[in-house]
């Protein structure tokens, strides 16, 4: 993934919490790596792409902890190619792809297939979260050791919750041998029968079956207890309730290494949106009430919640064009996550840009065990350039994703990705192609 032409990013504000960096500076990328921060004029090669990043934030590329790219078998929702295009348009340079395709990615051959298709997609780095259980049935462990060998970097049956506690405990134990994390979407399956939205006042009035918060809280409680008992690496997410925040905060204070993430849509819209009966608001985790939203935002800001993941769960239009019982959960979120989080948290004064980059790049990279999320010299040249103040209106019809359903369609946001650079190659830009081809020196 290295481009022969070096890139000089000039006049930007370098923001990288991993490097304690938040200041004006320039960045030189060469041979797929970060070559230098603030290079002297002598160090700058004669021929290079010159990007004027005046007014922009230059940050390590965003890392997503779990997208669904539906290939093979569910290409009507999203292919790896359309998903990859959506990811780089959203500023992501690495995405972890879930194995809930058809067939599910529960064999080394499946991992290999996804990796090969991903290599041709010219998007972000795509890493595989393989299925935790055989056939994703939630009964027996998949061949975890062989899957690691094939390149899987985490295991999960998500979006299906791991209902079987014995399976989860064994897998946490077993994966200690590989130092590989298990991701669980915390839901107690017995408590969510046919639910389509947050269980609360609004679901009561609308007569819609609810997803109670305790279904998530119970699963989080079980998950963190099993992590403590086994010493295995566990990531719970996405979470969406006050109860989850409370439990996670308490186990962290006891020094247990559990990490957690949230989705941007759970930081913004409430269950009131379901009054429209529009299936674009049927997302998972469900849009909850204002109290939960406020608590989640505070937990993201204070670091109780480690990471923000897009929750990209694309579903074809013909599936979403239905009533709330029949339409599947899901939405395209890769292209809106950064703007939604920046608008909701940074511009609202709840956290800084540095904190945003930490939640969307640095921490996810650490959780996934990847050498990303940093602007250290020698690190892979994965960089996202963001105009922090650019206002725009989200229009799902313009998405690169194969899915045009979004809970944020029509929302006004501020902050936009201008460049996404993966391994020193420009994979996405909103600027005319020739503008950055100026030759310096």
């Amino acid at each position, binding site marked *: 993934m290295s481009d022969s032409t070096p890139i000089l990013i000039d006049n930007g504000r370098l923001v990288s919490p991993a490097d304690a960096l938040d200041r004006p500076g320039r960045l030189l990328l060469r041979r797929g790596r970060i070559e230098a921060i603030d290079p002297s004029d002598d160090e700058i090669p004669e021929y290079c792409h010159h990007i004027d990043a005046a007014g922009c934030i230059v940050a390590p590329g965003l890392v997503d902890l779990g997208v669904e790219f539906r290939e093979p078998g569910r290409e009507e929702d999203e292919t790896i190619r359309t998903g990859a295009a959506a990811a780089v348009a959203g500023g992501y340079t690495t995405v972890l792809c879930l194995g809930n395709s058809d067939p599910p990615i529960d064999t080394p051959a499946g991992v290999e297939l996804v990796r090969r298709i991903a290599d041709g997609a010219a998007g972000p780095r795509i890493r595989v979260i393989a299925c935790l259980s055989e056939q994703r049935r939630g009964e027996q462990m998949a061949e975890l050791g062989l899957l690691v060998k094939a390149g899987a970097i985490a295991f999960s049956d998500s979006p299906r919750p791991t209902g079987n506690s014995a399976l989860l405990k064994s897998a946490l134990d077993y994966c200690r041998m590989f130092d590989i994390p298990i991701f669980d979407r915390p839901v107690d399956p017995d408590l969510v029968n046919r639910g389509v939205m947050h269980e609360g*006042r609004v679901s*009561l*009035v*609308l*007569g*819609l079956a609810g997803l109670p918060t305790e279904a998530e809280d119970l699963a989080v409680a079980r998950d963190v207890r099993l992590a403590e008992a086994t010493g295995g690496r566990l990531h719970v997410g996405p979470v969406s309730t006050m109860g989850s925040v409370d439990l996670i905060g308490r186990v962290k204070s006891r020094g247990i290494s559990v990490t957690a993430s949230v989705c941007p849509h759970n930081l913004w819209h409430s269950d009131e949106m379901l009054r429209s*009966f529009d299936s674009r608001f049927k997302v998972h985790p469900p849009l909850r009430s204002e109290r939960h939203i406020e608590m989640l935002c505070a937990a993201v800001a204070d670091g109780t919640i480690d990471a923000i993941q897009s929750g990209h769960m694309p579903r074809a239009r013909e599936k979403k064009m239905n*009533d709330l019982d029949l339409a599947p959960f899901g939405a395209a979120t890769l292209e809106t996550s950064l703007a939604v989080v920046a608008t909701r948290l940074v511009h609202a004064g709840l956290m800084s840009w540095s904190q945003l980059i930490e939640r969307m790049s640095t921490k996810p990279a650490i959780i996934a065990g990847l050498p990303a999320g940093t602007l250290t010299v020698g690190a892979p040249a994965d960089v996202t350039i963001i105009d922090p103040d650019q206002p725009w209106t989200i229009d799902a019809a313009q998405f690169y994703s194969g899915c045009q359903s979004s809970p944020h369609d029509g929302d006004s946001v501020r902050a936009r990705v201008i460049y996404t650079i993966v391994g020193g190659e420009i994979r996405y830009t909103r600027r005319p192609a020739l503008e950055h081809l100026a030759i310096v020196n």
Partner: protein
Amino acid sequence: MTTSPRDATTLDADLTGIEPPPFPTNWRKRHLLDLESLTAEEITTLLDTAQTLKELTAGCRRKVSLLGGRTLANLFFENSTRTRNSFSLAAKRLGADTVEFSSAGSSVAKGETFIDTAKTIQAMGVDWVVTRHGTPGTPHLLARELECCVLNAGDGAHEHPTQGLLDMLTIRQHRGRFDGLTVALVGDIAHSRTARSNMWGLRKLGAHVIVCGPATLVSPRWEELGFEVAHSLDDILDRCDVLNLLRIQFERFSSRPFPSVHEYANRYAMNGRRMRRCKSDILIMAPGPINRGVEITPEVADGPHSVILEQVTNGIAVRMAALWLMVGASVAGEGDVRSHQGGEDA
């Protein structure tokens, strides 16, 4: 808007010549989706219009051609006999044609979405789509997609606005007001669209509403929304002016919300013993179908306080009013329905 009761001399008159009532000047709504979003004034207009049309068509054997040349489509994705027939009769009594559609054996069984099915029916040229569906919000989605009027005949556990209106019309005919009345809805509130429509409608017009039933079927959150919650029928009996006894919807349970029907009947069935503790002028209502011996015993269902069959009669009046008002609003300014048969243009 008032119409004097018809006297005996008009009984045999040619009813097609009857002067229709003036169209209410304040009516704008083209769809009847729920009572939660209607104002007290709109609900009163619906009830007044229903009363007028009921009197206009009372005892007649002929149609009033108020809606002649128009077509109603019944689009039912859930079983129904009384509501569907009630809408059909209401349409026919005002001179409209009806077309029936039910999901069994239709294109829905072939995989078509309900929106496509509704659009197909609309393309055949209909003025109203009356829809019943197991999922809340389906009429609201149709109202956004269709040009014609959409009337909700029940959407899952959400609302059943014409049922709410006919219950209210029945109460008003007996009490003449809602202010100061205490109305208890008893039974499976959780799964009841009738309960929700009654709750909003009654409260908007000033009644005090109690929802009563087992704790598993009556959420404490209703209190946050301003309704009184009770779990013991015996505790509220002597305060109630109206009891509306809802059916237990066994088909909707995933796990049993109470130990047995026997125990339920013991706590909530309206029987002769409980009747003796009620106010002397209590009204006993039930939206039906009734389960005799579960929520109501035969001596109560068939007793002097029961208005269950009046509710059914009022159902047609309410639906006539809804059909006329909705289609009237959608042709506003065209002088169509409003001036039809010589009525005044509003």
